[in-house]
């Protein structure tokens, strides 16, 4: 369960759109190194969510949307990051909301567009769009090189099943 970068799926319109949230916490180990204080440079610690993990959160949100479209039979692998724009940092206490949209789906793979919003817990603050992330996924059993992969679906394992169940998404795999 450690490599899940979304906490809950809050909306799923099959083959169309998935919305998930991630609560950023100071108790996460990586926050203490990203960025640690630098006494020599006189810099205080600045704990912010690393951008690659925000991309991973969107990849998991989008990947579940793609996997769900195929009944989780396909092994859905992130194949290409087409675009990433992130305009602001997410700090402990913030919530990130990922909205993934399925723009293309066929036997070989899928393409998604995504929007990242920052929800601050401060009273009276509105959600702020802070990023756009477009991704491509491959159904690797249908790769054009004809390479073979293990039969069991190693992509959607126990962690994802638990996340789906806790989010109230009915799955049968």
């Amino acid at each position: 369960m450690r490599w899940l970068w979304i906490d809950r799926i809050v909306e799923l319109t099959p083959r169309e759109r998935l919305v998930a949230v991630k609560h950023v916490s100071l108790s996460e180990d990586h926050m203490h190194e990203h960025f640690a204080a630098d006494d020599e440079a006189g810099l205080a610690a600045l704990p912010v969510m690393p951008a690659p993990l925000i991309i991973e959160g969107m990849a998991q949100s989008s990947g579940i949307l793609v996997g769900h479209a195929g009944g989780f039979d396909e092994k859905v692998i992130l194949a290409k990051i087409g675009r990433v724009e992130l305009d602001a940092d997410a700090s402990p206490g913030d919530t990130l909301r990922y909205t993934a949209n399925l723009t293309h789906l066929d036997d070989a793979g899928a393409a998604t567009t995504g929007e990242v919003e920052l929800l601050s817990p401060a009273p009276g603050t509105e959600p702020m769009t802070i990023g756009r992330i477009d991704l491509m996924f491959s159904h690797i059993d249908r790769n054009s090189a004809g390479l073979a992969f293990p039969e069991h679906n190693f992509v959607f394992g126990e962690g994802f099943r638990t996340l789906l169940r806790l989010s109230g998404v009915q799955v049968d795999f």
Partner: protein
Amino acid sequence: MTRDEVFEKVQEVLVDALGVDDDEVTPEASLTADLGAESIDFLDIVFKLEQAFGFKIAQGELFPENVAQDPTYVQDGRITPVGIAALKERLPHVDFTSFEQDPELGRIGEIFTVDTLVRFVERKLESAST
């Protein structure tokens, strides 16, 4: 749609999919050798062409599939005459003239130029209108 209009849209697709500059996308530029396309980019290009031109492209219709796994098509790392004949039939938009001189499997990516895509799109649009 004129050939120039098709080329402009194909150029936009490649600039977006491969992160290259407009002026790099010349008709004779090879997708792999000149524009740096990797295998997953071919799927991206297929998706973006479908979106740009509003038609569906079946798997294996634009780019070949499973060529290397067929022993009648590939022997000792080279595509056999039988393989080339089969590819020509499956991929009528591709010009194999140069590849046939040295049909090494590793060079297969080089047969796809910007012009190949333009020809492919023209054929698709033509068949859709007849």
